[in-house]
């Protein structure tokens, strides 16, 4: 192989790579740009054909309308509380569970936990509604936090099982020989190595919880509604209103999109680091 051949191949490889990157990323970019465009147009431009990408007049009022017509801040705080608590609790019980299952190779217990994830979400609704009513918890955020655990716990456990399965046993075994308890081993040996995995589990649990809306429909009242449910309610405007609808959608999605950009380094770095050690 001559040097020139190699470099030509490399250049072609580079072009091919960039082309593939472009092809892979463009559906996401185009979609969100189009969503932004919809949210900034008046109805007359939104329903125009051929479509108008950048309108002459920006309809900033779409955003103002959404903020004015809904108690956006209340719902935002509700969402934060529900997602935050459900994810926090899930990490608390799910990370040790993932560790335990991975170390025991106890896939049978994993199946039990999987049942929660497999159960159709709709079938929780009526029984739990009646239960929470009996307990007098309706009207608070507690029912939603609890039912969101059904979503977050299995995700955390599953991610952590996969993660701990790839982290080395040797250090832990050495620590055990030195007289550490299993809890100490978990806390001081396994957990620090698994930090990047925790980030992935955390972020995925946040997404699933944040985006869930089916549970909220029945369990949320006027004061306890989460943002996706509130947005779905806006969505069903009794008029054709693509602009405000897209604006509302974008505003709800923005926190998670920002989280994506902000945390993607951690997700990816976590996966890479964990994997190198696991190799």
């Amino acid at each position: 192989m001559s040097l020139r051949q190699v470099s030509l191949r490399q250049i072609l490889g580079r072009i091919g790579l960039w082309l593939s990157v472009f092809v892979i990323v463009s559906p996401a970019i185009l979609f969100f740009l189009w969503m932004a465009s919809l949210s900034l147009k008046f109805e007359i431009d939104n329903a125009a054909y051929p479509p108008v990408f950048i309108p002459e007049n920006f309809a900033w009022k779409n955003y103002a309308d959404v903020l004015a017509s809904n108690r956006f801040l209340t719902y935002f705080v509700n969402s934060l509380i529900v997602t935050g608590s459900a994810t926090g609790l899930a990490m608390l019980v799910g990370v040790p569970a993932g560790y335990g299952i991975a170390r025991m190779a106890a896939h049978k217990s994993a199946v039990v936990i999987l049942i929660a994830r497999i159960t159709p979400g709709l079938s929780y609704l009526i029984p739990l509604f009646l239960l929470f009513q009996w307990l007098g918890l309706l009207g608070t955020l507690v029912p939603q936090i609890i039912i969101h655990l059904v979503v977050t716990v299995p995700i955390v456990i599953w991610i952590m099982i996969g993660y701990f399965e790839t982290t080395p046993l040797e250090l832990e075994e050495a620590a055990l020989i030195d007289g550490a308890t299993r809890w100490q081993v978990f806390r001081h040996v396994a957990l620090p190595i698994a930090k990047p995995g925790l980030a992935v589990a955390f972020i995925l649990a946040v997404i699933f919880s944040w985006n869930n809306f089916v549970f909220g429909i029945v369990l949320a009242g006027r004061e306890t509604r989460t943002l996706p449910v509130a947005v779905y309610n806006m969505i069903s405007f009794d008029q054709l209103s693509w602009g405000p609808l897209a604006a509302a959608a974008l505003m709800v999605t923005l926190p998670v999109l920002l989280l994506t950009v902000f945390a993607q380094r951690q997700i990816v770095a976590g996966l890479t680091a964990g994997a190198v050690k696991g190799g």
Partner: protein
Amino acid sequence: MSHHLISRRQVLAGTAAAGALGLTGFPARAEVNWKKYSGTTLEVILAKGPRGDNLQKYVKEFTDLTGIKVESEQIPEQQQRQKCVIELSSGKPSFDIVHISYHVQKRQFEKAGWLADMSGYLKDPSLTPPDLVESDFSAAGLQYARNDKGQMLSLPWSVDYFILYYNKELFQKKGVEIPKTLDEMAAAAEKLTDPKEGIYGFVGRGLRNANMAMWSNFYLNYGGEFLDAKGNILTDGPEAIEATKLYQRLLTKSAPPGVVGFNWMESMASFTQGRAAMWIDATGWAPPLEDPTASRVAGKVGYTVVPAGPKGHFSSTYGDGIGIAAASKNKEAAYLLCQWVVSKGQGARLLQAGGGVPFRSSIVDDPEVAKGVKTKEWLQSVIDSSKISKLGLPVIIPVAEFRDIVGAALTTTLSGADPATELKKAHEQFRPILERSEKA
């Protein structure tokens, strides 16, 4: 203009109070004791839409009048229905007052006994102003609100007729007359259709379930009845087949592609873009059609009654009411709000905003109220429809199943299936469901 409107509206809203004060010349009666429940808080659950908007926009006036605090929220129709049913069936609903869709929920709510009887309150002069009497409600309204025993379980709030919207410009361009019969309409639709230009003669609901509301106009006008004397469903008969053939013809020959998935929203999008010449749907869409920021056809829309069929001329009618949960602890206070909701002032506002049509003749027939309606042609179509009003869905418990199953059959005919076969299949599927529900 708007200042003038507001002041007049305030006068109208005050009609109830004014009546109590004897200003309108009613014979002296015991006065409504508005402040009796001052300090009470009421919870109201509303379906999202112009009715709910109308309540929320002006409810402060009610609070000022009565001292009753009102906590209300609007939820999209489908979820609101679910939430109400789940909460009412649990016996401890979180609301006192519920907004119901008669055409879907009447039988269900009656049978379950979820609503409080208002008959006594209506006759109580300390709760009801003198102008509010049962006979002021239209026949359809009373049919909806009363149960078998003649008790008023709710107050009829707003009625929805189906009317024909048409694009005057497209009709003029092609020199087509406004159709008077369904056959003329189908022929006109075909004349107006020009796929090369992206113009279609007709648009309407093709979507399963939603389509039943439009189809029933055809069905009734072909002489169809939903139930026989024994309560058996009749939607596989010759009238249904004829109506479905018309439905199939209109939506396959002269409707935009994809109409099979259209609900009112998509239909309206076609119509406001000037891409559909005719549209049959509920009365409530005049405001968006006449809004120049949302519609390309503002000022060019004609409104008229649904064309007549060979065996009848009806306008499919649906309606909303407002009732009190039987489990509510504040029934009388709740009733005060209910009667305020259907008061002349609130009804006039609803009609003038184009958001709905009150069931009360004293509002619809009032020339003063009519003056405040922006689109006269629309109002005329509403008044004409009210004279040929007929319930657009059978009054049974499994209405939702009915709409889904027969609606799916209609949708299937749009892909070329035979109307008679599909209706027969749907009929076979639905009959046991109906029998089961009536037996239980």
